[in-house]
């Protein structure tokens, strides 16, 4: 396996892997001494991988979530859907390629699929604005939310964005309005909504696809109120402090499960989804299928009430007995 990119903390693993590959390619690789050396190296690599990856810091997880080789939306569509029919446009301004939408069949079940697409190579990434939607992207998403509602098709959203785009055009066309409308539309949807965060969950731009009945997140994906860099520059006036910010924001799947913000975590292979994507695709597919089947048993009333309650209960605060307006609070 050739790897073009690795993160600092992966360096020792990558170096050993490189040495292993060189040995394997050696014409004398079958000689007993060298063969022994190869076996020893393989063992060491497994141990080192376990040590490196089983105790990742929040910042290391953020780096894995952003890994250039991590599978993105297009790979999931290819691997977990059949009969994919992409559809385009917000019917008002333009087709935003940072949001991809269409009809798909997953595990024999017809669904509407809407996701952030950050692109697969440099040119594609630029075209898709690195997965940061403009307002027209959210308005495109809303179109497909309504389509799902009208034709009684479950909705699957795939979240993977550093955040909604911050630019002049995006502001002038009402980025905040588009996100709020997206939240509002999902709130009322009469069909099951399942969200899967496969990488980056960047603030409101991610939440706009995330008001769901069931929220699935990959083990090393993150979900945060602000990027670690943004938090660091507010707190310490320095983006270099992003690793420290990642520690305080509570953005890992472990934190998110504890706070009741997400419902299910899908394990990733040692080192991240890009190391063995097939395992992750199967995990995501079966989680979606299982959840769709479960949610389809619920009535519309149950679905919308439970979705309301799911978000209604989030938030930690104290409510000591009121003095002056006790009557009001009893309501």
């Amino acid at each position: 396996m050739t790897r073009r990119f690795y993160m600092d903390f992966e360096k020792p693993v990558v170096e050993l892997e490189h040495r292993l590959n060189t040995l394997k390619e050696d014409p004398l690789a079958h000689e007993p001494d060298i063969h022994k050396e190869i076996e020893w190296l393989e063992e060491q690599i497994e141990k080192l991988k376990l040590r490196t990856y089983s105790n990742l810091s929040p910042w290391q997880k953020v780096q894995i979530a952003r890994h250039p080789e991590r599978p993105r939306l297009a790979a999931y569509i290819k691997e977990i859907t059949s009969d994919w029919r992409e559809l385009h446009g917000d019917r008002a301004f333009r087709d935003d390629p940072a949001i991809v939408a269409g009809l798909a069949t997953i595990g024999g079940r017809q669904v509407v699929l809407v996701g952030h697409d950050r692109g697969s190579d440099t040119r594609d990434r630029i075209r898709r604005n690195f997965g940061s939607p403009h307002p027209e992207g959210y308005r495109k998403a809303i179109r497909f939310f309504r389509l799902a509602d009208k034709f009684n098709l479950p909705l699957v959203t795939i979240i993977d964005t550093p955040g909604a785009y911050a630019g002049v055009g995006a502001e002038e066309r009402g980025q905040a309005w588009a996100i709020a409308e997206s939240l509002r539309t999902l709130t009322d949807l009469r069909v099951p909504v399942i969200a899967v965060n496969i990488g980056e969950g960047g603030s409101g731009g991610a939440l706009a696809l995330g008001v769901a009945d069931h929220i699935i997140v990959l083990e090393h994906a993150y979900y945060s109120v602000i990027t670690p860099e943004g938090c660091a520059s507010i707190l310490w006036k320095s983006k270099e402090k992003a690793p420290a910010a990642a520690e305080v924001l509570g953005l890992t799947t472990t934190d998110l499960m504890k706070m009741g913000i997400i419902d299910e975590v899908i394990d990733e292979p040692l080192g991240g989804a890009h190391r063995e994507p097939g395992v992750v695709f199967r995990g995501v597919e079966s989680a979606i299928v299982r959840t769709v089947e479960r949610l389809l048993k619920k009535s519309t009333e149950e679905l919308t009430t439970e979705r309301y309650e799911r978000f209604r209960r989030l938030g930690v605060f104290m409510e000591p007995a009121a003095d002056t307006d006790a009557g009001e609070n009893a309501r």
Partner: protein
Amino acid sequence: MPLSDWLKHRRQQLAGDPAGKRTVPGGIWSKCANCGETIYQRDILENLHVCPECDHHFPPSPDEWVAALLDKDSWRQTNSNLTPEDPLGFIGRKSYKESLAAAMAVTDGHEGIMTGHGRLADRAVYLGVMDFRFIAGSMGAVVGEKVTRLFESAKDERSPVIMVAASGGARMQEGMLSLMQMAKTTAAVARHSDAGLPYISILTNPTPGGVLASFASLGDIIIAEPRAHIGFAGPRIIQQPLGEELPKGFQRAEALLEHGMIDKIIHRRDLRNELAGLLGYLAGETSSKVGATR
């Protein structure tokens, strides 16, 4: 800086500076932070914190907003007993607990928003007024809960909601739980709206981020104050190719009106009448004579 602080600061400045001592009986002279004109302090207070010279809209306190908008003695505050917690044990430059303690000291126990109900031109209304002095009016769990309860109660009472927004966005120190308040408040607005009830949102200076990207931009009618700064992203993080300058008046109320994002810009002195007039059309089905007064 809120006007009250600014005035206090100015007073102290004047007290310490003999040359600046220009007090006259019954009041003092102050300098407008916007136009620099010297103004009789009582004039600006009586003018609802709007500079009589340049019309700059300074922020009133929530109590002053209530007095400016509602019928005399009709206000009942609700849920003022809700107080914040520190779910992440957040420590940045200073701890969240310290920031909360400092913020509590400047506001009167209502956290980032004061909510309640009263009457506007004899019509029952539910009113929320955000307070920028409390950690920049950011939305944490208390703001989210109070906004949610406001819309839920208004729905139960079949009353209109008026929201005066001023906020720095989501409260980072509460992490993802603060982001979730966007979903929670939006859902409450949706239910109130689905019940056919009116919601008028008033965007004051400033209203960016998560508050705008949830309940504040979902009004049936959205009013902004003159020159208010309103937008999703702060100007510092707006990405500009080749370092171009931001357009003139960018993210100001006037530009938003031009781009079709708000309904109108209303001077503060006309706001109460405007709201009464609008509700006359929208709130026909709501409880105009019952509900709010106890």
